[in-house]
């Protein structure tokens, strides 16, 4: 049974007042390595079918969501009935909204799912083996991970809406260390098909950074002028993004709540005219152009919104908070427009063209970071986050990198940081370090912060 047949048959079997079926076919391949040798690998396929039944009752509309893998022709009806039971048992849903009506699309609904395989690494793996040999000869150890995923999703609704999308997601991360692990550097890249991955180039960059670390410098905790590269900014902005729900803000319990009631939409957040936006059609960062979810979560996603078309959305426009993530149900309650989550993020500023190297060159004295790690919320009221620097903190003196500094634990809020921008560089496609299990599509600038709070020294290397 093809995914399309599964969707149509499940909808035909349904006795609920309405319903949505989400069929997902996923194939993935990966290689992982450490100490200049392979450690694990895999080639996996999975398939899931989620049936979302909608039942209207006197007290309100309910939804029942049941998702299963390995669904066959024989077990599909059982899945549909389980979903209907779940809807009847659930009671009114807080996020209930009319299902999305059909609209014109150019989706190739009839096309089958696309698949990846371990063969996607046919050029990458030999180049990696060569890098291992080179690294061993130059007293370096390489660690890392390469992954390619193709996920094809079919969404069908009892309203007649049909949508299909194939999402390629790939990434490669390489960590280089000295044999005693005392020096460490990292490079990462997102990719759609591994055709643009240059292993030699990544390895060369690691070599340069490990070279910078030949001289080590001890610095105490304190506030430092700090250059944060795109990877670090991506991790900070992602946390800001997932904290930007309209419902919780209007309930008075996030950094985007306004004292006295309401939200901070319309308030100047940033000290430079930066724009933070999501756009499913962003070149190089293309992502699913409609909402697709099997879980309603925290006012950020709703199963009732499946199939809703996504469009470019500014979250911060020219430094001003422009919008917050809003389900259709919450939008209806508050008289606002829906603003669903979109799976990419772009932060940029007009006329910002400086590269990291150019920003380093005009730095009298400061720190250049590589990436941030173990980022967790300390105080939701300010969105104070804590975390560590990782795999390279470099001292910049007189416009040049002069050595590697110890790592730090930092405590900072990304919202506060936006209000203290000393310089914004050009936005570049980058791979978030901390959150790339979930989020790989980002374009971020390098930012200069005059007084980044390094709270304590970490002895980790």
């Amino acid at each position, binding site marked *: 049974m093809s995914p399309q047949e599964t969707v149509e048959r499940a909808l035909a079997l349904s006795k609920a007042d309405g319903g949505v079926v989400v069929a997902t076919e996923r194939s993935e391949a990966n290689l992982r390595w450490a100490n200049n040798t392979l450690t694990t690998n895999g080639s996996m396929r999975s398939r899931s079918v989620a049936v979302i039944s909608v039942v209207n009752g006197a007290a309100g509309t*309910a939804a029942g969501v049941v998702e*299963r893998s390995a669904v066959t022709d024989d077990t599909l009806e059982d899945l549909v009935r389980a979903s209907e039971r779940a809807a009847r048992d659930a009671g009114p849903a807080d996020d209930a909204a009319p299902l999305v009506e059909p609209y014109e699309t150019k989706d190739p609904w009839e096309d089958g799912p696309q698949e990846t395989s371990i063969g996607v690494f046919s050029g990458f793996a030999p180049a990696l083996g060569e890098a291992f040999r080179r690294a061993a000869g130059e007293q370096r150890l390489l660690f890392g991970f390469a992954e390619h995923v193709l996920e094809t999703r079919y969404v069908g609704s009892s309203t007649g809406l049909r949508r299909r999308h194939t999402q390629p997601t790939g990434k490669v991360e390489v960590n280089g260390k000295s044999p005693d692990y005392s020096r460490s550097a990292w490079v990462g890249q997102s990719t759609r098909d591994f055709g643009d991955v240059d292993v030699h180039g990544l390895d060369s960059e690691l070599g340069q950074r490990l070279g910078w670390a030949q001289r080590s410098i001890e610095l105490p905790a304190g506030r430092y002028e700090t250059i944060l590269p795109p990877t670090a900014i991506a991790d900070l902005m992602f946390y800001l993004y997932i904290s930007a729900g309209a419902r919780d803000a209007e309930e008075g319990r996030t950094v985007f709540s306004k004292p006295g009631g309401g939200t901070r939409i319309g308030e100047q957040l940033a000290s430079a005219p930066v724009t933070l936006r999501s756009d499913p059609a962003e070149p190089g960062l293309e992502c699913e152009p409609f909402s697709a979810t099997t879980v309603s979560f925290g006012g950020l996603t709703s199963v009732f919104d499946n199939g809703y078309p996504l469009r470019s959305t500014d979250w911060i426009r020219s430094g001003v908070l422009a919008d917050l993530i809003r389900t259709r149900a919450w939008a209806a309650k508050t008289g606002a427009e829906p603003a669903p989550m979109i799976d990419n993020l772009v932060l940029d500023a007009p006329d910002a063209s400086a590269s990291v190297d150019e920003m380093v060159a005009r730095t009298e004295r400061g720190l250049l970071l590589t990436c941030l790690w173990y980022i967790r919320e300390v105080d939701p009221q300010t969105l104070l986050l804590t975390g560590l620097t990782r795999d390279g903190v470099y001292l910049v003196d007189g416009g040049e990198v002069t050595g590697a500094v110890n790592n730090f634990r930092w405590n900072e809020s990304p919202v506060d940081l936006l209000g203290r921008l000393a310089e914004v560089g050009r936005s570049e496609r980058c791979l978030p370090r901390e959150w790339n299990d979930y989020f790989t599509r980002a374009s971020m600038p390098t930012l200069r912060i005059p007084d980044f709070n390094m*709270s304590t020294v970490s002895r980790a290397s």
Partner: protein
Amino acid sequence: MRRLAEAALDRARELGAGHADFRFERLRSQDISLHDGKLDSARDGEDLGFAVRVVHDGTWGFAAGVDLTPDAAVRVAEQAVEVAKVSRPVNFEPVELADEPVYPDVTWVSAYDIDPFEVPDPEKIGLLTEWSERLLSADGVDHVDAALEQVLENKFYADLAGTITTQQRVRLHPLLTATSVDRASGSFETMQTLGPPVGRGWEYLTGTGWDWDAELAQIPEWLAEKMKAPSVDPGSYGLVIHPTNLWLTIHESIGHATELDRALGYEAAYAGTSFATFDKLGQLKYGSDIMNVTGDRTVEHGLSTIGYDDEGVRTQSWDIVRDGVLVGYQLDRRMAKLRGFGRSNGCAYADSSRHIPVQRMANVSVQPAPGGPSVDELISGVRRGIYIVGAKSWSIDMQRYNFQFTGQRFFRIEDGRLAGQLRDVAYQATTTEFWGSMEAVGGPETVLLGGAFNCGKAQPGQVAAVSHGCPVALFRGVNVLNTVREAGR
């Protein structure tokens, strides 16, 4: 299952695999969440599939599939061998596994009374609604979020050596969060239930293992007091830490630090390494002389507890820190062989059929002092300190040195007595200094088994559930931060 296993293993053997194992998994899950007493989400899931792992020409090969036929199993076995062949040029360290006795056809089931998946949904949603309404009706509680995660896990494992295991376990985690908002000032605070996630059945929500009624009754008062509490003065304090907070510090600073794969660099690019490197085994002074830590996958109701691991190894318990000195690691079969341990202590785990087993955390627990002090006795010995209850924010560096934790409730200790709550507290330390400052551990009656559903490790990312037991404990001279001042306000 058995037909699939036989087909896959036979094919792997034919293709020259030296080792091959077949794993079939069924994961049933249900997540229910409510917002202010109304249903936010209810989702039922069943994840079914199988995997074949081989060692071919000294190289791992792993593949997973979902079509449950012998033909599909043969194809997945062939894929696993193909993966090994593609990977061979980048493998410079032949895979060898530590020996393990063969267990032909054994079964194991975790300790629970009522399968939560047999409980009607209206009963579950009704209970969470009633709990939410109880909290919402109290003065000062503006919002309540309720969540219940439930998992029923079935694992079937077979390997070329002849081991066949069939296992089932259940776990669940209820969590309620009350929020108080001062609209005028824009300030808000939260207070969560502290009943830990456990390897129990539905009986856990109806009074076995945790007194939910008593806890829910106290939350509004604790929350109201926290809203009015003074902000902490940063500095050095004596900390009396309750097990509801200390389990997480154990998890991060001992649990992960004593995983041998981390110590050997296998997680260096992702989860990180460990300061507790292999050369320090038997020598590293991890903490004070009263510090004793065990690893186990056997304690009743523990989240990591199971009969056999995902490499067919019978689970065990062992010492990790004895009298303050590092004496053991958590192992899988490859790690055990690499460093000459002879036998794995059974820590291989994969979170689904789609993922390859890696070394995951056992229930790592700090042991109490026989006849040791009570909570009140520990507090009475502190002149200026803070009593910390409940876990919240956590972060630790990639070698497990530097950490920072917050909590749910912070009570000021003045001259051996509690003197009201404090706000904005975080404690920050370096692992060996922190455990070295542990002056006293409570008696067995203060022990609680805490834990988490969501420990992350490996690439592709895998989650694992794990428990940590510990008594209340007293630490001297720990650095306390004021989180508002850290934010520069």
